């Protein structure tokens, strides 16, 4: 059995430790070692975005990051988006605007949308589509997802919905 590395990182605001083999991705570490199964695997080679998490402020495909690369990093996953007992406005808008059908891509989209709105609070439709182009959805055709992100942007800035 290969020896496991001991990694210390901040995950969803909390100091966290986990063990992982050198060959395990961050996606595997999150799901299999930390039991944070909200982040999903769709392709395991960086082409679908279902595994999107925010690492040191940047959205990444966690299947393309090794677990051992996370030493000292600050990572946010879908489990860390809601504030205590309230859904984040992005999550709330996804529900109100029916921006999900099967829901498997939804965590990845919410993370990508959060990263986008953190950086650009007033994106155009084109900017939203560009930033979300790394996230595949097969159910919705993206229309309601884009509208939900527009809606969340307005809500976050305090505009009437």
């Amino acid at each position: 059995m290969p020896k496991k590395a001991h990694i210390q990182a901040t995950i969803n605001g909390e100091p966290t430790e986990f063990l992982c083999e050198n060959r395990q991705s961050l996606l595997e570490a999150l799901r299999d070692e930390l039991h944070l199964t909200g982040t999903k695997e769709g392709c395991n080679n960086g082409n679908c975005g279902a595994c999107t998490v925010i690492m040191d402020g940047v959205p990444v495909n966690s299947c393309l990051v090794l677990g051992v690369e996370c030493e000292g990093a600050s990572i946010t996953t879908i489990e860390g988006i809601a504030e205590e007992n309230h859904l984040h406005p992005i999550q709330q808008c996804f529900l109100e605007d029916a921006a999900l059908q099967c829901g498997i891509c939804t965590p990845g989209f919410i993370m990508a949308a959060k990263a986008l709105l953190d950086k650009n609070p007033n994106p155009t439709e084109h900017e939203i589509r560009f930033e979300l182009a790394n996230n595949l959805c097969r159910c919705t055709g993206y229309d309601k997802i884009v509208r939900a992100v527009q809606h969340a942007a307005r809500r976050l800035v305090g505009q009437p919905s």
Partner: protein
Amino acid sequence: MPIDTRETIVDEGRLPRGRGAAAPAYKVIGTRPIRHDGADKVTGRAVYGNDLQLAGMLHGKVVRSPHAHARIKRIDTSAAEKLPGVHAVVTAADLPDLRDKMADLGEGRVNLAHLGANVLAHQKVLYRGHAVAAVAAVSPHVAEEAARLIQIEYEPLPAVTWVLDAMKPDAPLLHADVYTEDMTGHRTSDQPSNTSKHLLFEEGNIEQGFASADVVVEREFKTASVHQGYIEPHVSTALWNVDGQLTIWTSTQGAFTARQQTAELLQVPISRVKVVPCEIGGGFGGKIPVYLEPVAALLSRKSGRPVKMVMTRAEVFEGTGPTPGSFVRVKLGAQKDGRIVAAQAWLAYDAGAFPGGMIGPGCMCVFACYSVPNYRVEGFDVVLNKPKTAAYRAPGATQAAFAAEQVVDELAEKLGMDPIDLRLKNAACEGTKRVGWPAYPKIGFIETLQTAKNQPHYKTPISGKNRGRGIAAGFWFNIGLKSSASASVNPDGTVTLVEGSTDIGGTRTSVAMQLAETLGIAAEDVKPQVADTDSVGYTDVTGGSRVTFATGMAAYQCGLDIRRQMRERAATLWECEAQEVNFEDGTFRHNGESITFKQLAGRLNETGGPVQGRAAVDPEGPTNGFGVSIVDVEVDPDTGKTTVLRYTVLQDAGKAIHPSYVEGQMQGGTVQGIGWALNEEYFFDDRGRMRNASYLDYRMPTALDLPMIDTVIVEVPNPAHPYGVRGVGETPIVAPPAAVANAIYHATGVRMFELPMSPPKVWAALVKKNV
């Protein structure tokens, strides 16, 4: 504020059976409540198949054929078995003998030997990716290492991957026991063949028909294999317990069909098998057949531990069920006034490696939108060295529509007629007899066409270089089939609903809304659960656009059952007869007294105990879904790239229970159709190997490729459903490839006869035209 481009048009003059003269004023139906499973799905709490973790769980991995066609000479698993951490290895030898066994899986009878051989190859491998063996080990990585140690000796055979080639007499023969059969299963030849089915439908006299036509158009079309593309790969976990009970947690469109397929393949009684459907990350038809369930079960039986198996994305492409590639020839003849007088189609669909493809629906859909007095439709189901096909959203209809709707478009141009007008002239309506089928009941195609004609999109002229507009129509039957449900009244007036339809697109909620409407309570006061095969009555698949229709009908009948019982309770309280108690708007009334549903729910214990409603329905389909697409494109002459500028999709939904999710089906199916039209294909090399088995090169649409998809829901209520529901999920994928092709033609003057209409192909066609 973004423009709200949603629109629902109610056909005021037509009503569900049993209603009064005015359109019904629903309290819940037609509203847009938040889905009941929403909180779990936006927080990552919902448990999908791969999220399941059981104590002592092992991880399974399948070994797959690298060859498109080969005999299996020898399998040596000894080295794999010796690897530390490996607990079991299985091959087809671990399956029982399934020869000559058939099973009724709810959508026709299935040859179990073929199903079993697809799950684990028996004597031959028939496509690259065909499963041959599997291992279970302590981690996915160890399982992969062990898989590499399994030694398999193959004798490669010539392979064939194009349907017309596979039909040739000298084509490599896949099965020595497959013969050409007609529609009734009657063998039409003594020679084994790759052509497993030959269908023929004929009415009237097409020779006379074409002779009387003023304009005749005949064209040939080809389509490549495409995949459903669901983002969640297949995943199953099996536990063969020490007491002989087999439990399977799986990503499936139907727990009951998964149970039956698995039990039949393993030849164990279904009473020993329980299937727990996990939340499912997309299906579109591809998660109706079993692939991993029986293999995980065999590994669990051998190892004595639970075994989880997950497919990689490449395995999903190479080892599950894409839709048929096809060759279709369509010929239409019309008179000057636009009336179609003769229609002819010749269709060859590939079925992948085993018989049982979609040629039947293909033949029956090709002219389904039109009233045609003289027709001849001939179709062939052909096996070849590709993965066995599985259903993909209106299976077989899209290939046929790509052909027929382009010929209709060309006819319109030659006749100098507006393309919608030509379709209106020939549109199927109530009473139209169709290919191979009885006459239509009440349908909404004409209403949908008229609505399309009045759309601002259609009325706005398109202008600009290399820009064009395309119209196309699509049809899908939508099935009925069986659903069971039960519902319990809680003391606080909420109702717990137990049903068996896995929720892929929000159907928990559309079904719950129908129960809520029936009981006069809020949608939020119904708590829907999707249950396993031990906890709810038999329920057919989530597919065929049936759940809102059939499981909704079961919920409605549960509601009627509860109402009947509650009227008796009210009668007990008021000391009168149950038939004297009225129920309306959520309130029971008699002689000036009244009590709401909620209030009465609090008094059940004193009036006789719990109240539970139950239903088991088997409504007869089809519900007949018609759709129309209007699409504007721009083609870049330097690259051949087609950009979708604007898209409006219209569809008759009968009655939209939850309009947001009906819109979602229309948009999602449309975008799958756009991907099918512009980029998606299985690219095979000359050795029958798929060269683009990843999301990078199997190019599905992204958010950046598309505009908003505007939706218009037309409502011509279905008389065969209490709330007028027609299935909606599948029809949207049928029209888009033809609509986009028609748009490309009107943008460039070049008609594309092959799917996908990817940039290199469009570019080459433009160059050819301009030479």
